[in-house]
């Protein structure tokens, strides 16, 4: 645990009556915002999708309004400088910013050049820059990769390089906008540790994240935004105790331990403060009593095998072996997750399942036919894949045309049937009002739903593969997508999810296939998976806070039943 450097009361960032409207938008993105970020403090910025978090971040380094334009009223100062009067490049001496997708932040080819890029722009002495490059790379543990090409880095290394590049600028303020959105849990944890270490060294950190588990207890301040307004600001514990239920209502992810506390408090069953960390929760619930385990409701083994993979290997043209002897079955009606570290072979496996690649060794049998006998287009009638970026799969100029295209591609050309099915699907996914909109103009959640709709509207798909269902989505959008997925499952569609989200895995799936370095290292239920620390470590996974709470209670000899996979399960099992 990193020791907190004392934050001072001197403000580093000050927002006075700030209202900002993006160019061409009818309503303001930020409204009457007053806030302060103290020097040396660690501030969490939370809120649902579209609440104004990224806009606020871009005000901190002057991108707004200087580059993106728009209308700014009120005053924002960073390190005593008015951000609307000092050029963005000058503000780079005060604010370092790590963007959501650092790959696009990189301006050079090699790791060491990338870290040097910012200080070089500020005309620092080359000798000093080289020292700072070395220090920054050491800081993030990438010294050995300094000569590597930036595009050859893994997802986690890319994030760490982004962080090193920001650290090397030596700014008093570091702004991090969702730095771990697409990382495996263990890499996320290591990036979190780095952030805490930076704060420990006196830098001011503003962090936007949906992954609050590890930060709520560490942060000095928490700012809650909704529809551009600051709903609450203060110490995280105070904000949670006062606005916890409001935060949940807004669709923000909170640690499961906190959610349990909030629910119990709302029911009048908790008199103490809402716990934030696992340790606090173990203390709070140390005297709790639980109902005995209920027999599992659904233990029947599903027998109809849709996909059978036997000793599958896949090697890319550059000799990179992405899959090594992977065998598994996917049965009718299951909800299976493929999990594992970044680069473990999950996406390659999904490409093999939809026929975009063929195994270089071994065999996959799909619906009774071998993979090599399937054409991609034919297989698409049986297996639907929803890409992580749904924009990639859109082909038409309106949502309606997009759905019609899918039907036409399946040979359904009766205009009456097409109109009926499109209408039904639009209503079912609650996107009817956007039927004439361009697919690219939809919100992130609606794009995801349209992605699912385009793949399922023909009604012939038996297996749905969803790549990272929670990526870029807040809690409400994720829950709505999972509701859709669960409904599809009820209708008999088998679901395969590729995900890093352990909470999702624990709450929804029957079975997890765990991948590490191209090999399958586990195939079983979530209970077994989360009971094996070695396995989790090998696959760069982490148990959910709920699982760690249950383990902590059991270590204190409290009888906690099996099968508590969600907050609702836990609260429901308490006597």
């Amino acid at each position, binding site marked *: 645990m990193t020791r907190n450097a004392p934050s001072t009361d001197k403000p580093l960032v000050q927002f006075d009556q700030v209202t900002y409207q993006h160019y061409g938008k009818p309503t303001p993105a930020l409204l009457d915002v007053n806030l302060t970020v103290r020097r040396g403090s660690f501030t969490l910025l939370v809120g649902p999708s579209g609440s104004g978090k990224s806009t606020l971040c871009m005000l901190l380094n002057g991108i707004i309004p200087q580059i993106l334009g728009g209308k700014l009223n009120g005053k924002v100062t960073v390190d005593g400088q008015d951000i609307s009067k000092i050029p963005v490049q000058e503000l780079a001496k005060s604010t370092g910013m790590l963007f959501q997708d650092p790959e696009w*932040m990189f301006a050079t080819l090699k790791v060491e050049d990338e870290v040097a890029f910012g200080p070089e722009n500020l005309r*620092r002495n080359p000798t000093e820059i080289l020292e700072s490059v070395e220090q920054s790379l050491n800081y993030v543990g990438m010294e050995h990769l300094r000569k590597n090409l930036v595009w050859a880095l893994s997802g986690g290394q890319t994030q760490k390089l982004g962080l090193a590049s920001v650290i090397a600028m030596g700014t008093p303020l570091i702004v991090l906008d969702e730095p771990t959105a697409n990382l495996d849990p263990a890499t996320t944890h290591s990036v979190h540790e780095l952030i805490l270490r930076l704060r420990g060294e006196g830098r001011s950190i503003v962090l936007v994240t949906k992954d609050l588990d590890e930060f709520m207890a560490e942060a000095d301040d928490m700012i809650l935004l909704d529809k551009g307004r600051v709903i609450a600001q203060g110490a995280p514990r105070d904000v949670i105790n006062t606005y916890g239920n409001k935060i949940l209502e807004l669709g923000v992810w909170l640690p499961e331990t906190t959610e349990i506390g909030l629910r119990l408090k709302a029911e009048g069953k908790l008199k103490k403060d809402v716990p934030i960390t696992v340790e606090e929760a173990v203390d709070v619930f140390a005297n709790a009593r639980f109902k005995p385990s209920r027999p599992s409701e659904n233990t029947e083994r599903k027998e109809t095998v849709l996909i059978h993979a036997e000793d599958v290997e896949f090697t890319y043209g550059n000799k990179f072996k992405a899959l090594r002897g992977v065998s598994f079955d996917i049965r009718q009606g299951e909800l299976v997750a493929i999990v594992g570290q970044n680069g473990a072979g999950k996406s390659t496996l999904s490409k093999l399942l939809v026929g975009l690649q063929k195994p270089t060794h071994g065999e996959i049998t799909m619906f009774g036919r071998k993979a090599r006998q399937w054409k991609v287009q034919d297989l698409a009638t049986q297996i639907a894949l929803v890409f992580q970026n749904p924009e990639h799969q859109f082909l038409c100029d309106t949502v309606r045309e997009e759905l019609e295209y899918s039907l*036409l591609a399946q040979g359904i050309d009766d205009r009456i049937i097409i109109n009926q099915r499109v209408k039904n699907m639009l209503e079912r996914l609650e996107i009817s009002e956007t039927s004439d909109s361009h697919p690219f103009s939809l919100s992130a959640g609606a794009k995801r739903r349209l992605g699912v709709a385009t793949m399922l509207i023909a009604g012939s798909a038996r297996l749905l593969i969803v790549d990272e269902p929670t990526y870029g989505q807040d809690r409400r959008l994720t829950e709505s997508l999972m509701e859709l997925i669960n409904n599809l499952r009820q209708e008999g569609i088998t679901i395969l999810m590729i995900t890093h989200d352990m909470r999702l895995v624990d709450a929804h799936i029957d079975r997890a296939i765990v991948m590490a370095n191209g090999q399958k290292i586990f195939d079983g239920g979530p209970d077994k998976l989360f009971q094996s620390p070695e396995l989790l470590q090998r696959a760069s996974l982490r148990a959910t806070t709920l699982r760690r709470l249950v383990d902590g209670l059991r270590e204190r000899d409290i009888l906690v039943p099996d099968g508590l996979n969600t907050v609702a399960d836990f609260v429901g099992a308490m006597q």
Partner: protein
Amino acid sequence: MSEHSLRYIDNGSFFTRIDALSKLIWVLLVIIATFQLGSNEARGIMLAFIVLIILLFARVPLKTIWQAMPIILIMGTLLFIVNILTVKSTSFITIAGYTVGEQGYDRGLEFFLRITIMVLASFLFIWTTDIRDLMTGLVHIGMPYRYAFSIFLALRFLPIVQQEVDAVKAAHAIRGRASYSPIRHRFRLWQRYMFTVIVNGLRKAENTALAIESRGFGAYPDRTYTKSFRWTKTGFFLIIIFIAFAAWLIYWERFLRA
């Protein structure tokens, strides 16, 4: 794992270690020399020379060259066919059972060889040059760094755009084909590749622009460099040897060839 053909290969080869400006001058000299050559035999020798450098001195993997070939072959073959069909010929020859005009064939081959030599030399430059070295080189000879950097960024993002195209192609493949004609379907796909890649490209280019500005790019009229540009002796020799080779080739085809 990316397998794209047009990107820097940091293999420490002899050609990789030559400074970027000498290589750039070499590419320009290759283009000038190619236009000075008057026979397809001489162009063939020039092509062999370039291929020899690619294989022996740059050690570019055959697979990478193979992956880049469609670009060269499509451009070269199109020019070849257009010339065969459009150039008026007075004599005719038979190739693989087809009778074609001799002058059209010669002109077609000339264009094919020219384009192949020039494109391969340019590819060799991309395969063996860390574009940052080119940028510092251009700044070294007086180009404002903002302009030098724009060339650099364009080449820096080429592999990422290729990845984007691949992702879009894969996604479209599994959508299947609506009951349009194959040509209409193909047209629609291309239209959509372009749309998606341009929209995402612009979006990402905007993000990149924001990111580099926020890292102080353009704060001052100049900037410091941790790696400064240095002319290399090998670069000097490359230029001298190539000039000698090209001069000999021109002399050979004009005076020695029967």
